[in-house]
């Protein structure tokens, strides 16, 4: 099967940047597109959520939170133990990997849809749920034993009221209240156009990733290796956890993708403020330069295989 056209747009952006094309997406448009994606993902999840009893979701939500905490701790142990990174850098990068990438999630959903593979349709809930634990654990890891105090109140405000959580949770709530019928008028805007906007957004992501190339060259051997090994290990862990939590193979593919993905919107901002001594160039080279492109091209099909194999 041919690669998803949205991924081809990503490769176009990447190639254009590496060839030093002057292609540039203005920042306000990038921001508008990312707001759109968050609302659309939240809304769709909320509408589907309206068809499910909320209480039944609790064990899955708890399991997914635990997954986010475990992947952050594992990433920290690997970065500190194997990579010999400074505590600040190791905790910051671990926080990025514990959190999730909304766009990677969108690509996974689109990949499943193109193949007609069914999945639990309320998965957007877990995107919102998984954004936070990695960031919190990462910051806590940086501060244990350190003398600097963390302004947790300020930080909670930054993370919980960042546009990611506000629009995802807000979209979920609106979709849930409106229900399938009520949300129907929004479908042309937030449903039908979704894939086109995703393609546009991925074009920009290609340019951003291409810009990491320089930092990546300076990062040495360990970090790029980690940026591929971590999503593979966490993808497997996520697929296994999802299988145990009763997800379908399609749903498990998404959970695995979420576990394997690393945040490049919420986490970098939070980490920059909470762990100033950590190098942002290092974490972004790993997250954007390696893990994000790896996940959307090679990772997602691989996580699907893992999920199918586990389902037996």
């Amino acid at each position, binding site marked *: 099967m041919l690669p998803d056209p949205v991924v081809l747009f990503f490769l176009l952006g990447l190639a254009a940047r590496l060839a030093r094309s002057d292609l*540039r*997406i203005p*920042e306000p448009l*990038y*921001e508008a597109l990312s707001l759109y994606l968050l609302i659309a993902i939240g809304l769709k999840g909320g509408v589907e959520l309206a068809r499910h009893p909320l209480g039944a979701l609790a064990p899955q939500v708890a399991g997914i939170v635990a997954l986010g905490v475990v992947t952050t701790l594992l990433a920290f142990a690997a970065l500190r133990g194997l990579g010999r990174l400074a505590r600040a850098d190791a905790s910051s990068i671990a926080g990025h990997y514990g959190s999730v990438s909304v766009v990677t999630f969108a690509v996974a959903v689109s990949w499943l849809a193109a193949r007609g593979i069914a999945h639990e349709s309320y998965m957007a809930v877990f995107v919102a749920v998984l954004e936070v634990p990695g960031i919190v654990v990462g910051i806590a890891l940086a501060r244990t034993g350190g003398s600097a105090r963390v302004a947790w109140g300020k930080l909670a405000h930054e993370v919980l009221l960042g546009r990611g959580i506000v629009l995802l949770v807000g979209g979920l709530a609106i979709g849930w209240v409106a229900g399938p019928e009520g949300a129907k008028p929004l479908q042309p805007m937030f449903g039908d156009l979704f894939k086109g906007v995703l393609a546009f957004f991925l074009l*920009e992501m290609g*340019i*951003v990733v291409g*810009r990491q190339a320089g*930092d990546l060259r300076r990062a040495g051997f360990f970090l790029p290796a980690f940026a591929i090994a971590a999503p593979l290990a966490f993808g497997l862990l996520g697929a296994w956890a999802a299988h145990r939590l009763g997800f379908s193979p399609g749903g498990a593919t998404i959970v695995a993708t979420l576990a394997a993905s690393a945040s*490049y*919107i919420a986490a*970098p*901002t939070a980490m*920059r*403020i909470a762990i*100033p*001594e950590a190098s*942002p*160039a290092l974490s*972004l080279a790993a997250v954007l330069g390696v893990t994000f492109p790896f996940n959307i091209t090679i990772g997602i099909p691989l996580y699907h295989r893992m999920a199918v194999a586990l389902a037996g």
Partner: protein
Amino acid sequence: MDTHARKLLVIIAEAALEKTLVEDALRLGAQGYTVHDVRGGGRDGERTASWDGDRNIEVKVIATAAVAEAITAHVLATYCPNYSVSMFLADVAVLRPEKFT
């Protein structure tokens, strides 16, 4: 025309610092501020303002020499060790001194 001498303090920094820089400036006595989105490059690399993690801001404050120096000292001690910051002071003349104490 009556003019009064004041200092213009310009701080160019990562966008992540916007909120705290503005809070600090006001707390240290600035009466107002202006923020622009900017892009540029320097010793710490290039900032093209194409996405969140890559944005820079320029904060401008006009204040008395004492206030401007207090803000400068605070920024030097608090942010310069770990963040990319460019900062400079210039002499300016204002028409309404009560706005810029």
